[in-house]
């Protein structure tokens, strides 16, 4: 017997190995990293500033100087698209973190406390599910003002419900497992049981669902910005850029680049995030409720 053959593999390692074999997910993963890095790098290396208006260069189609053309104020669309990407990514990641924090804490509490508290807490989640949440988001957005901080906080606060359900289900079943009983028998304290024994076990589903939350939040941000209720000028995001492009549609001259470039970046990103999320779900074999 050789030692190498017996080397143990954790379920996470096995899942990551399965993920690595999924071609669509891997390609999406690297493409996503490429788009993400470009949003960081392009504005740094570009010769054009993203708020610099050159009125003599308005509405120019893509050319050698302006690879993605210019907008109605003579600003370089390429820099603006990637700067907008920064905001879209930031909103997606930050809002997901907010929803992750609330969802995991809420779900873990409900699952761990159990009984009447659990029933009450989950009933509340059911009520929240029944509300037309996009309309409530719009109302809250118009009241709190349209800026970056408000956008991701509000979106995060309205998208933690599914996460809390998943975590609660996991905690409920883990609570009864022998290793938790054993830990308790050994005198391990409750916080230590939650952090050392339960959290590592629910990490898989949590990561999977968080990955799928990112595109849905980015989509909501783009939706809000499109309606003029999300990110506001001079900042920009993909939704806002598409909105500008859609507003410029007219029968005389077609400014296709205003819609096509930011639109493709958004579409590619959404596609990749969804593929990676699906790949992770298959790899971790998560049952979604």
């Amino acid at each position, binding site marked *: 017997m050789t030692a190498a053959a017996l080397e143990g593999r954790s379920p996470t390692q096995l899942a990551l190995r399965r993920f690595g074999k999924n071609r669509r997910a891997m390609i999406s993963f690297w493409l996503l990293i490429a788009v993400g890095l470009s949003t960081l790098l392009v504005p740094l290396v570009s010769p054009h500033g993203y708020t610099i208006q050159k009125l003599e260069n308005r509405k120019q189609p893509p050319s050698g100087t302006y690879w993605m053309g210019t907008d109605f104020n003579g600003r370089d669309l390429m820099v603006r698209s990637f700067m907008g990407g920064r905001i879209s990514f930031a909103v997606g990641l930050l809002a997901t973190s907010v929803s992750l924090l609330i969802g995991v804490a809420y779900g873990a509490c409900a699952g761990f406390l159990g009984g009447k508290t659990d029933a009450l807490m989950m009933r509340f989640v059911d009520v929240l599910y029944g509300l037309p949440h996009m*309309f409530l988001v719009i*109302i809250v957005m118009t*009241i709190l003002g349209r800026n970056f901080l408000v956008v991701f906080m509000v979106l995060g606060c309205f998208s933690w419900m599914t996460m809390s359900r998943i975590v609660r289900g996991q905690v409920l079943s883990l609570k009864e497992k022998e290793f938790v009983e054993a830990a308790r028998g050994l005198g391990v304290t409750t916080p230590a049981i939650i952090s050392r024994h339960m959290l590592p076990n629910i990490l898989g589903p949590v990561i999977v669902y968080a990955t799928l939350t990112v595109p849905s939040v980015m989509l909501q941000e783009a939706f809000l910005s*499109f309606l003029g209720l999300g990110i506001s000028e001079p900042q920009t995001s993909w939704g806002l850029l598409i909105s500008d492009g*859609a507003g410029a*549609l007219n029968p005389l001259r077609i400014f296709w680049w205003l819609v*096509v470039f930011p639109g493709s970046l958004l*579409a590619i990103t959404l596609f990749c995030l*969804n593929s990676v999320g699906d790949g992770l779900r298959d790899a971790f074999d998560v049952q979604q409720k």
Partner: protein
Amino acid sequence: MGPFLLKRLAGGLLTLLVIATLCFFIIRFAPGNPFSSERNLPPEVKRNLEREFNMDKPLWVQYQLRMKGYLSGDLGPSIKYYPKRVNELLLPSFGTSLQLGALGFGFAILLGVPIGILSAARQNRIPDYISSSLALVGICIPNFLLGPILVMVFSLSLRWLPVAGWPESFGGEELLKLLLPAITLGAVHVAYISRLTRAGMLDVLHKDFIRTARAKGLDERTVFLKHALKNGITPVLSYAGPMAAYIFTGSVVVEKIFNLPGMGQHFVDAALARDDAMVMGAVLIYSCLVIAFNVVVDVGYSWLDPRVRLT
């Protein structure tokens, strides 16, 4: 059936109450008020305005007055379009939004279900690949991107279809105006519905009763459309409830792109102008639609699968 409908009616009213209360207090506890944006309003004018809209009364009294209004079917006065009432502003546009929603919904079902059946019948062959690539497109091209692209291609470049607007009469050329909005609104859901139908059908096609149906010599058409479809389509129905919410949210965007006179534009304008009665009216009407739709879906569910009891 009777007790079920009563129960759902009560549940729906409760949800509406929660929504109305939530909206009311969110709007009222927020800093500023609808008149703070208007510059240099003389204090007397401001006081009169506040009296007109009951804003000088204690919050609790305002809340009661608003709820009493709702019970009698009055959505209150609009602040932005004073002296018009919310009812007369929203009702005409309600029809537009409802028709638009129904169109998007019909488009999604009428296209999605056949594609799903076809790809289940021809699993891993060309129709199947077409439908799965459609589903991918649906996931990554949201309606606010699809709409402008369709307008650019079909209205502005090819000039096949009108750019925007709501048909003045329902016949002939005018109806073409509805085509792009319906596609924009329904496309995402075509993708989901075809995948759900496919999965549901494949699930059912392995069942014993299908084998029995084939064994007794029924042709494939009857097996698929009569025996399998009724069972295979239930996942689509459970998606139809949430889909109603998405469709009505989406119609806000579609109304903006195609310049349609629906409730969505009113809602966004009202939210920006802090016209609280208008905002609440629109939210409540949208919620009513979604709730009503979910009841219809549940009834449909029990019709398709009699084992499901309506409780």
